[in-house]
């Protein structure tokens, strides 16, 4: 288990981490998710010992590691840009940690062969990193990190430098690998889809703090604030509430508690249909319905429909920043709206 207790970090005037605490459960694959500059990489590097915390503690498997050198932390670290040892072959890269520990040659060779086949690079042992693709280099880096049997595996945007297709493949591959190896893994990413698809738990970070920690479904269905809700999926503002676009129900007839809106555009995206609407207050709202629903309603531009939030994920909308709020919702318009649902 990795436990971070009240860690803060300043870079000059810039606060990278502000009293952050997190517990990464044993054997789990946990994601640190957040926009760039949210402090997620700094947190990972502090856990790995590549940065030092200004205050707070890092505990790895029950031992205080706060002041322990990175080489003594028994961690595996994977970098966004691979950090491959360019002057060494794939074999020597993977063997590095074992060679440093002066293990017997035959033992090292066997372990490297085993790892290379695990990461699917069995035929590449004699190549140099420059002769590998990005995805292969990252798999080599993972094998290198796993070779020393680390207590925890730390991945810093491991797929960030790869193209979308390779990224999706490697993501699946990493999840399967984790299910086999079971090493406690902490992965930094800014890609919510990546976090949702492979991790057991997600810590959402913003502005040097952890906003929420939970499993992917929990975060999606019960976000603790507007930021988490917006970062994990699309959000529509319906009156004074935030809802998911697929949680907006459309009806052709007046319903109690529903808001009146005019259809401004209907976009067909295969099975899904995105409906852009305009409330009587002048606010724009996006709803997402299935094709069947859209066909039943016979939605056309200019139609009047009634909107109601049908899902469980609802948050009160934060006050909009003055700049965008000024033209759109004059207080008088509110009075003209039907009363909102409880």
């Amino acid at each position, binding site marked *: 288990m990795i436990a971070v207790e009240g860690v803060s970090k300043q870079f000059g005037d810039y606060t990278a981490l502000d009293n952050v605490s997190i517990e990464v459960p044993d054997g789990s694959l946990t994601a640190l998710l957040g926009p760039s500059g949210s402090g997620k990489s700094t947190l990972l590097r502090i856990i*790995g*010992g*590549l940065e030092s915390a200004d205050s707070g503690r890092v505990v790895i498997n029950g031992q205080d590691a706060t002041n322990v*050198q*990175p*080489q*003594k*932390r028994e*961690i*595996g*670290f994977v*970098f966004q*840009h691979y*950090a*491959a*040892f*360019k*002057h*060494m072959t794939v074999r020597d890269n993977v063997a*590095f*940690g074992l060679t*440093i*520990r002066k293990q017997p040659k035959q033992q090292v060779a066997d372990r490297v062969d085993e790892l290379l086949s695990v990461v699917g690079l069995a035929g590449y042992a004699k190549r140099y990193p*420059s002769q590998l693709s990005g995805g292969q280099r990252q798999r080599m*880096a993972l094998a*290198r*990190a796993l*070779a*020393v049997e680390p207590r925890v595996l730390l991945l810093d945007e491991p797929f960030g430098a790869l193209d979308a297709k390779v990224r999706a493949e490697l993501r699946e591959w990493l999840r399967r690998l984790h299910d086999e190896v079971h090493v406690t893994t902490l992965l930094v990413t800014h890609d919510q889809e990546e976090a949702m698809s492979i991790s057991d738990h997600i810590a959402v970070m913003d502005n040097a703090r952890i906003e929420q920690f939970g499993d992917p479904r929990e975060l999606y269905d019960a976000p603790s604030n507007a930021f988490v809700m917006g970062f994990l999926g699309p959000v529509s503002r319906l009156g004074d509430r935030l809802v998911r676009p697929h949680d907006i129900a459309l009806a052709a007839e007046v319903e109690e508690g529903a808001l009146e809106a005019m259809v401004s555009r209907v976009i067909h995206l295969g099975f899904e249909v995105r409906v852009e609407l305009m409330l009587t207050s002048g606010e724009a709202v996006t709803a997402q319905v299935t094709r069947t629903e859209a066909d039943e309603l016979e939605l056309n531009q200019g139609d009047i429909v009634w909107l109601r939030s049908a899902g469980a994920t609802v948050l009160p909308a934060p006050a909009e920043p003055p700049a965008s709020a000024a033209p759109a919702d004059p207080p008088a318009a509110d009075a003209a709206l039907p009363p909102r649902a409880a």
Partner: protein
Amino acid sequence: MTVSRPWRIALRVIGLGYLAALLLVPVAVIFYRTFEHGIGAVWDSITTPAAISAFTLTLEVTAIAVPLNTIFGIVMAMQLARGRFRGKTLLNALIDLPFAISPVVIGLALVLVYGLNGWFGRSLADAGIQVIFSTPGIVLATIFVSLPFVVREVTPVLKEVGDEQEQAAATLGANAWQSFWRITLPSIRWGVAYGVVLSVARSIGEFGAVSVVSGKISGETETLTLLVEKRFSNFDLAGAYAASALLAVIALVTLLAMTMIKPRREEEEH
């Protein structure tokens, strides 16, 4: 840039002509004049006791100065590329001082500091160490003039390589020493080699600073360049040409080493 054909040929002729007039012709003439009276005369001229002593002294001085500057250069380059400290800009400018100051001035400065009437000269002399008009002075002067090469070659390479590989090595259990020998040094090796070659060339060819501090005692503190100058001033032209040819051969060998390093460097950079 697109240039019409006649222009292109004209530019090429000018470029090559410049090179030929200023570099190739003089060097070729030296070799021509050297071997004008047969190889036997040349051999006699470069195997006199004074010549052999000058040749050995030059190699000795180079063998001391270059390794010291290589170690210093790598340490300094790591500070300049990675370190965060006050006065880094000043230090960076100071490294170039030997390029900026005339070697003669460097020689004089060394005499002022280490000469018998200099700052440390008296106490060093009392301890039985003679710096000026002796080998240590020549070594100091040579170190001074060839100091920037390794630093200047290695610093940009270190910056380009970055420190991520070293961080990776650290997380894999390597201590600072292991990380330096196994990761840092191999990744800057071509930069170091290039800097060493340039330092060697400069050390062997240095004249001005060495001329001031050596005292030019034949057979004792006379380097190869000083020998050439002495023979030339004594109207021993054949002897001067022979010694020059020897210097030129050493220079060409280092140049050859440099061109052999270059393609390998470029190969690594893709």
